């Protein structure tokens, strides 16, 4: 690769913002961006690889297919919740209530399915609606009444914890017996179905990219080189098929992996391809500019909290599926802090205006990867927490250094 020549802020900015006409130019532009501090998901992928290498060298079972399948199932609830929290972080607020809100969702789900004998779909819808309402109320208190989100959702954390205990009451545990719910994390895709889904997803992605390319060309705008699109599709197929193959060496890909991919794609579209997503970023980046542009600040902020609440409830459903029973500890274990940590490790800013869904997913893999690896080594929770803390600090440090680089290069 030829060394990048761009040095002044203007050159850097144009080099990274303009579309490259061919593959090598695209690679070069990407490298210029990385050097200027536009790291994207690079640090977290490097981090994941480092975690894999370190834990595998300490205990080779870490990189076994059995453990990989376990890890996917362990990551799922946290990843779902972290994706939701990302929306609140983007508008420069925080949501500490998601952990116990997911606990409330678990208990309600268990009781609706068990004692009330509701049909599965109705119970799922009811739980998601409860999450949305909880988000609405908290969002309303923050956006309309003007209370700090830290306090409102801290009250939510304490209150929902109480609600879990009240709803469990004298039952001790609520057992989940609904097969559909259990299947979410306990049913595995046959390898062939897995490959087929990977190919379909990659082709759909490619089709979307090519359609966009055609529209851009029709509007006389610069386009990504075709072979870059092809490269991405092939890359998706290789990574996806590799994961399916690896999982199939043991039980296979759990059903919940499909849910994660669907959420990743759907929420990414919501965040980056719709007006709502654009407004969330604007409100997080410069609320005054958003207000003057006629964006409803209250409505936008409440939307973020509702998405967070709904996703917390969905995370609770996945949790219930994994645990198969709900007890008084439901929603505990610092889920909310882990969810925020996951998003931040992935590069979502606590100061608002910046964040991606993929960051939340990858960040959840880092958090649970450390947890899982330390567990395999037989280390206590104390060590897990300390190592997680170090990983979190390291991630934020890398991000802050990269950010400084971007500032210097005039990119942020």
């Amino acid at each position, binding site marked *: 690769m030829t060394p990048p020549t761009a040095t002044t*802020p203007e050159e850097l900015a144009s080099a990274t913002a*303009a579309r490259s006409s061919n593959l090598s130019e695209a690679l070069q532009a990407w490298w210029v961006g990385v050097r200027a501090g536009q790291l994207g998901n690079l640090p977290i992928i490097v981090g994941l690889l480092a975690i894999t290498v370190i834990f595998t060298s300490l205990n080779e079972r870490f990189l076994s297919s059995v453990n990989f399948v376990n890890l996917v199932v362990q990551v799922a609830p946290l990843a779902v919740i972290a994706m939701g929290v990302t929306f609140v972080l983007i508008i420069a607020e925080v949501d500490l209530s998601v952990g116990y809100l997911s606990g409330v969702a678990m208990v309600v789900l268990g009781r609706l399915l068990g004692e009330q004998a509701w049909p599965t779909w109705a119970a799922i819808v009811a739980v998601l609606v409860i999450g949305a309402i909880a988000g609405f109320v908290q969002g309303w208190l923050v956006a309309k009444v003007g209370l700090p989100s830290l306090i409102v959702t801290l009250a939510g954390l304490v209150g929902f914890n109480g609600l879990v205990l009240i709803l469990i009451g004298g039952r001790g545990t609520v057992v989940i017996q609904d097969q559909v719910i259990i299947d979410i994390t306990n049913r595995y895709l046959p390898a062939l179905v897995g490959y087929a889904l990977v190919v379909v997803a990659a082709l759909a992605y490619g089709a979307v990219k090519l359609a*966009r390319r055609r529209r*851009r060309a029709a509007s006389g705008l610069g386009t990504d080189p075709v072979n870059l699109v092809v490269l991405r599709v092939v890359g998706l197929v290789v990574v996806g098929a590799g994961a399916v193959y690896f999982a199939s060496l043991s039980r296979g890909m759990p059903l919940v992996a499909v849910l994660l991919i669907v959420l990743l794609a759907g929420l990414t579209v919501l965040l980056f391809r719709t*007006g709502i997503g654009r407004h969330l970023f604007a409100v997080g980046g410069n609320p005054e500019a958003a207000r003057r*542009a006629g964006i409803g600040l209250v409505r936008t902020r409440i939307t973020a909290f509702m998405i967070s609440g709904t996703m917390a409830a969905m995370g609770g459903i996945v949790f219930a599926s994994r645990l198969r029973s709900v007890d008084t500890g439901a929603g505990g274990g610092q889920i909310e802090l882990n969810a925020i940590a996951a998003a931040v490790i992935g590069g979502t800013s606590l100061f608002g205006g910046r964040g991606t869904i993929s960051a939340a997913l990858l960040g959840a893999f880092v958090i649970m990867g450390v947890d899982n690896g330390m567990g395999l080594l037989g280390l206590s929770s104390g060590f897990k927490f300390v190592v997680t803390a170090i990983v979190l600090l390291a991630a934020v440090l890398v991000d802050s250094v990269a950010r400084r680089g971007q500032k210097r290069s005039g990119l942020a």
Partner: protein
Amino acid sequence: MSKRFGAVQALQGVDLALRPGEVVALVGDNGAGKSTLIKGIAGIHPFDEGETHFDGQAVAIHGPHDAAVLGIEIVYQDLALADNLDVVENMFLGRERTNRFGLLVEEDMEREAADTMTGLAVTTLSSVRQKVAGLSGGQRQTVAVGKAVMWNSKVVILDEPTAALGVAQTRQVLDLVARLGEQGLAVLLVSHNLHDVFEVADRIVVLRLGQLVGDLDASQVNQQQVVEAITAGTLTSVPDMALHATGPGLDSDDDDPGTSGEEHA
């Protein structure tokens, strides 16, 4: 127009007319009510009393959206751009174009933004997909102006557009302001810098302590006279005393006959 913030009477009986193709400068000391006046026109702090006419029609502006629908755009002193968004995203903020599935139509927006910026031809922007965070002061000002003129706007209000700029960038922005007037827009330029004002303005309106104390033809007066109006212009009423006191003002609330008021507030 009148505007009160609690006990503070920020604007009192101000009458202002803007006409197509004319650059009007709004000057006054700090606290004279310049910002309040333009925020009222923009619908951010609607007026308490008074009428607004647009193209001869009485209109009511209750929010930024109402103003935008009429074709009134403001370029703010602090620019009101979101640093974390790129140029296109900022220019279409709050007015994103979407297809029938609610998805953003980036191609149209990027095309239009690029064309607008090319049309202004002031600053060299390497790409409209650059984040605003990476732009210089002059480039940001251009983006803000581009955002204002892109919407077939009829009235463009610029709040201190050159306040934070260097010599060369100020030059570019003033050229841009003059060009907006030539293109038939009604331009209201709020500025502290009388040098800038005399360079581009056709008419100079002076505010003092929330009242209009001068409506001057820029070619007929000199800087000294404008400074006098800013610091010692005759008030129709003394703010600390009875509100109904009258005096020999340079301009009162009566209409300006013989003009087709574009924005008549």
